[in-house]
């Protein structure tokens, strides 16, 4: 959960620096990477949520690939170390955290798509935002509860 919060903070911070598209993309790449790792771990533990976590992991992997196609993404990331996902004991809590991160990703990437000058960046951000939206829809809790 700490990892999720850290990434979310980075995403917010990068977005607040107007024009820091590389920063947003870098943070988004990290966020998708983390989301995939956490989803894969959670899927091992949850019978009722196995499908949701599995498809969320696939969407996260695709989102990360899409971000990689953005021309403004820095060629290397100083923070890429490979996430060793730690999963909270309460899977609902983890799912809430990932849904929240995915919601933030959707918002930031949609905004970045509208701000970007390069068509390649626009397409990558818009497509990745759709993947983030999908993760949110898969992992968000039941609004009736």
């Amino acid at each position: 959960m700490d990892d999720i919060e850290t990434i979310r903070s980075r995403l917010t911070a990068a977005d607040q620096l107007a024009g820091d598209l590389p920063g947003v993309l870098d943070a988004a790449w990290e966020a998708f990477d983390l989301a995939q790792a956490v989803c894969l771990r959670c899927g091992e533990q949850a019978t009722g949520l196995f499908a949701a976590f599995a498809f969320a992991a696939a969407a996260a992997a695709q989102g990360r690939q899409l971000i990689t196609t953005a021309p403004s993404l820095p060629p290397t990331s100083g923070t890429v170390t490979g996430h060793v996902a730690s999963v909270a004991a309460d899977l609902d809590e983890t799912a809430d955290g990932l849904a929240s991160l995915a919601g933030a990703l959707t918002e930031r990437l949609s905004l970045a798509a509208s701000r970007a000058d390069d068509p390649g960046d626009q397409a990558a951000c818009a497509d990745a935002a759709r993947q983030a939206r999908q993760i949110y829809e898969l992992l968000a809790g039941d609004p009736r509860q």
Partner: protein
Amino acid sequence: MSVPTFGDLAGLASHHLGAATALADGGLPGEGVAASVRPVRGMALTLSHYLGDIAPYDEAEAVTSSQLGTWVRAVVDAREALRLAAGSLRPYAAPILAETTPDGTMAALLDTAAASLAAGRDLLRMHLFTGADGTPLDRSDWAAVVTSAPVTMALLNEIACWSQQLALLTGRLSVAPATEPASVMPVHHGLASACHWLVIADAAIRSSRRTAPVTLPDTGLLMAIPARAVPERQSPQVPETTADLCQGVVTSAIRLRAIACTVAGQAAWSGQVTAESLRWTATAAAVTCHISENILRLLVGEARPGPAGTETLLRGAAEAASHACASWRNVTASWSQMTTETTGLTSPGLPDMGDLIVRLGRLAFDDADWTPTRARQARLRGPANLAFTDEQPTAILAAVHHAADALARVAAADTDTVGTAIRAQRLYAPTRTLPEYLDVPYRYGHATPADTIALLEAYQAATDATTMAAAALDTVAIGLNAPSQVLAAARAATSQGRAPRAAADLPEAEGLPAEPATVQSSGKDPPPPCPPGPVEQGVRDLGITANPLLLLRAQAIDTAGRRLIAEARRAARPSAGRNPARKRPPGRTGETAAQLAAENFPPAAARTIASRARASEAARARPSSLSLAPASARGGTALGV
């Protein structure tokens, strides 16, 4: 609307041919012998065409080629005899008249029989098509069954029976009282000649299969071959009954099998092959296996008093599904750092895979509107809310069985696709994840050989595990008399190799006798059938041999019994577990229920594993041309390389 099967058409032909023969016994009131000649000739020709499909060699080739087995020569002889029978009748076959033949007459009965025989051949042929080099190629997932050795032998048996019936009919017609002008007399000579050749054809076919007796399950499988028809997609609705859900799963599985048959091998050029599609499919396969495992465990608790060992078989199938799920998760993990130059969810099977998951989920979970989202998270169905009727467990098992079988075919197709994509250098890895000291000035590079081999091995493992799960379900389906047991028979038949029509360039087809029984020691004949177990023998002793499904169930019960005895033996002698392999009876290699099932119904999985292992070794040995070289050297890509 149900899809017609070969059995429907063959049954129609046999029924009408039998009725016509019976009519001949009572004389030919009001109609002439001549009116019957044309349909009889047509049937002889059609039967010769059936044999031509099985053994596509001319007479000279059959006589001179040392590579053709004795049985192939016999089939060619029978084909020629049938042609001569048709030739004997040619001068007397009346042209087709515009008006229809009156119902109930011999000519009408024979016309229907002839049309049914021809339609039956068309039904079998629609599963194959001829490649550019003249080689028969698969057009559907049933093609391997149509061309399998056991089904070919069963078809030969049917052709021999029809030839015999026709011989009987023509013999009677040849001595029928001449109620017509004297000019008709030559017709009788022609019919007598046709009878002679039909008897020869029957004898030739029967001699061809002396060394490979036809079993009732083989005949049952032949009769179950459906017309090549892909049903329309049926999107899930809310609500659907359990029966609707099961039928929907079967429909999706049939469609997935058909799609898998058409998409394999397109990767070298197809834009439909994308990493996104393949990753999504692997994810969906893992989810399908996971839900299937849960359903099977539910069925264990729900099992009504049935054949001994049913619970054990169900648990074994659940374990196999669990193993397949883990294998598919490895595939998705292997895709983690790789992509293709094309993107998008483009595979034609994805909507059906989605339908399959939703319906299986609605069978497993206590929510009629279940979807794979957290918002629709639901508990597994339990005894309190299961509310199965007596028929539903077998219908649900059949749905899971169909899903596993379809998944096994998707796995094999995707493995081929990925292999072709690797050879075509269509897989890329982002350089962003490489260590900084490598300093690759491109966003993507070709995937490394280590990664591509790992991916291919993951697919091969998933294919093997999914095939094992389907094989385990074969045994359960037979044991519970589920409607999907034809899948088990099909897998068992296809595992025994193909008849020459699908391998005309081979000296002989695997599993078919190449030499007479006297030279069986050559090793080219199929192994002798295993002696029946006690339950199967008991059924046979009761004289119930005309029901292939009953015999298959008896075999499954014998299998379960052997496993129980093996377990009891191990429990009684723990020390024997130190080296259990040495304690097994000869020829027994399986330990788990899945392995046991694979040993008996069918042996395919073990063969697959062996072949995959060989392929894997070959892949390791092959010098790879893949490298981290910049892709831009070969032109830009959609990924901005």
